[in-house]
């Protein structure tokens, strides 16, 4: 396994693992119990069936325990999501324009590309708009996506911590060549990025005015 490309990936994968682990236990439990009952209480064995109308304790238990389990799932899902939604301080802002069927990226100095280049270990703020219909910028490797609703501005934040190339896909159906609306995010180190960018790109730190 290669290291997680962002911190958020680790947190999403943990939530996934947590829910799936509990689910697998429940699924196996249900299936095994059911099959066991079918053999154990098979009519061929000549059992007299017993009418059991219910069992209050059992019924309370199997409402309370699942409730606690799903509340914990909700909690982990929510906290991980909260972190991802927090707008980072001093991010590198890139304007994203989505249209049928490509993404265009525009940087502060006016540089435009159709592949997203970003420096490693820098917080990125994609400021996204659509020219025509709804799109959705999806970076599977980073476990994040955000719809780009026509007529609105949407933001997507991430901080890559591993150099590499990652796919960007459109995840909201947008017509004929929706399936071809792929591009890449190339995470490169600072020097390479400065060279590619052609100058200083460090976001200006906004000074908090003193009283």
């Amino acid at each position, binding site marked *: 396994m290669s290291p997680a490309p962002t911190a958020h990936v680790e947190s999403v994968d943990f939530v996934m693992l947590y829910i799936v682990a509990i689910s697998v236990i*429940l699924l196996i439990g*249900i299936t095994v119990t059911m099959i066991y009952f079918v053999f154990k209480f098979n009519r061929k064995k000549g059992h007299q069936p017993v009418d059991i109308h219910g069992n209050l304790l059992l019924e309370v238990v199997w409402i309370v325990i*699942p409730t606690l389990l*799903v509340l914990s799932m909700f909690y982990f899902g929510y906290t991980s999501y909260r972190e991802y939604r927090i707008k980072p301080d001093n991010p590198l802002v890139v304007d994203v324009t989505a249209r049928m069927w490509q993404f265009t990226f525009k940087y502060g100095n006016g540089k435009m590309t159709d592949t997203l280049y970003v420096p490693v270990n820098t917080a990125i703020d994609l400021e996204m708009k659509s020219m025509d219909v709804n799109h959705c910028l*999806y970076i599977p490797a980073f*476990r994040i996506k955000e719809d780009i*609703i026509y007529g*609105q501005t949407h933001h997507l934040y991430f901080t890559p911590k591993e150099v590499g190339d990652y796919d960007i896909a459109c995840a909201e159906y947008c017509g004929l060549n929706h399936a071809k609306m792929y591009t890449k995010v190339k995470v490169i180190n600072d020097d390479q990025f400065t060279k590619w960018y052609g100058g200083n790109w460090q976001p200006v730190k906004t000074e908090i005015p003193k009283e």
Partner: protein
Amino acid sequence: MANGTIAMTDLPVPKAEKSFFEQSTNKHSGILSWLLTTDHKRIGLMYMFGIISFFLVGAIIGLLMRLELLSPGGKIFSAQTYNSLFTLHGVIMIFLFIIPGIPAIFGNFFLPIQIGARDVAFPRLNLLSWYVYIVGAILALTSLFLPGGPIDTGWTFYIPYSVRSGSNVSLAIFAAFILGFSSILTGINFVTTTHRLRAPGMSFFKMPLFVWATYATAWIQIIATPVIAITILLVIIERAFGVGIFDPALGGDPVLYQHMFWIYSHPAVYIMILPAMGVVSEIIPTFARRTIFGYKQIAYSSLAIAFIGYLVWGHHMFSSGQSDTSNWIFSLLTFLVALPSGVKIFNWVATMYKGSIDPQPPFLWVMSFIVLFSIGGLTGLVLGALATDIHLTDTYFVVAHFHYVMFGGTGTIFIAAFHYWFPKMFGKMYNLKFAKIAVVTYFIGFNMLYFPKFIMGYLGMPRRYYDYLPMYTPYQRISTYGSWILVSTLFFIVGYFIHAYFRGKKATSNPWGGVTLEWHIPSPPPVENFKVIPVITHDPYDFSQLKEMKDE
């Protein structure tokens, strides 16, 4: 008749009572006696022909989609054709198969019988609903062949694309509008029937659970369906007259459309699954020959699902930019709606405990349902959690999840219901060995087809793509092979039922040893179901009646 189960048994029953096939409710004979019938059983069968035909058409379209995805490169169909295929697959399966499916066929046929009634409350309205369904279906088919071409927006018809698309969007969604009325009328009929036509002694808590589930569903049909009708009309007005309601270019709000669409379409998911849960609660006690575990808990959980189901629509829109507050509230409610479904599964498995289980085909289909539906439900938890949903929404993971719930859940039970009630409906028995083979191949084909989609979804494969990156090829392959096994099984099932209808052995009036009212009357039932309306003294799943029934 020690404790008077059914008054009918006191009367001399004539040997050759005419079945509803042989005796019509009107003066016509032949095809007209069907097309003008007000008999709930005949109307149920007329729905059956429509619904099964569309199910098979939808399945074949699904097969074609899988064929396209056998290899990367998009070699078989054009992108436009593929986009229309997945739209049609969704529209047909949802509006023409799975929403009407169980209520229209089995609800019509068995709801009146199970409460001891001779027909539904409004038999003519019932026939009208069938005609409305057929008109809707014809409009949907017409939209395929008119200039402009088949609709290509996906079954969700999201704005603004559905306003911009040059395909026949207006006619196709108008068809969905019409179909909605069929659903509303059926709902009104079932609610009234349940309230007004229960036999003497049948209190609400003596009703079979299939009646409970169909009743809860009927309320959703009545309350939720008008929302989609309004939404569709607004889209048509927007397309035809350029009035800005949803399209931002005209000053509208596309997210408003998504809200309105899901305010109907999420409760609609429960229209699809609740009747199936009702069927499961019928089949398990019959083959375990003991009463259901937690009758009231199951009945109430149907109502709970119907109610909370209205409040979770926003979980379809976690990535749409709605506020974080909306997102966490919808996420929390989504987890809560999962609980009553989970409770039902525990109740069903507990009903097998200390039973006398005879695993005949209907029971085997239910076992397969419990596994598939549990997988569908549990993966729903992954999608209910915000962090994981942001990653997985609009990917194959969602596609896999809802196919496990809708097809593995409702679809499997649709088939199970046929295996359970076919002898009652047609008076013939099918080949049990074939049916057992079909369960196994269905289960294998199903999991091959849909399980790889969970993995692809986690790896980042978006849905509604006619082509894909080469890294997904092995999974896509397995999925396509699975579709061949699954669709062949479906045709095999249709085949042995047709064979049974023409060549099958005569079925007795109670081949499985069930005790709900339909098993007290002949197979196939006579036109008026009951010679004398029964008086109910037993609980619905009281198998001590079986002994008395043998003497009937």
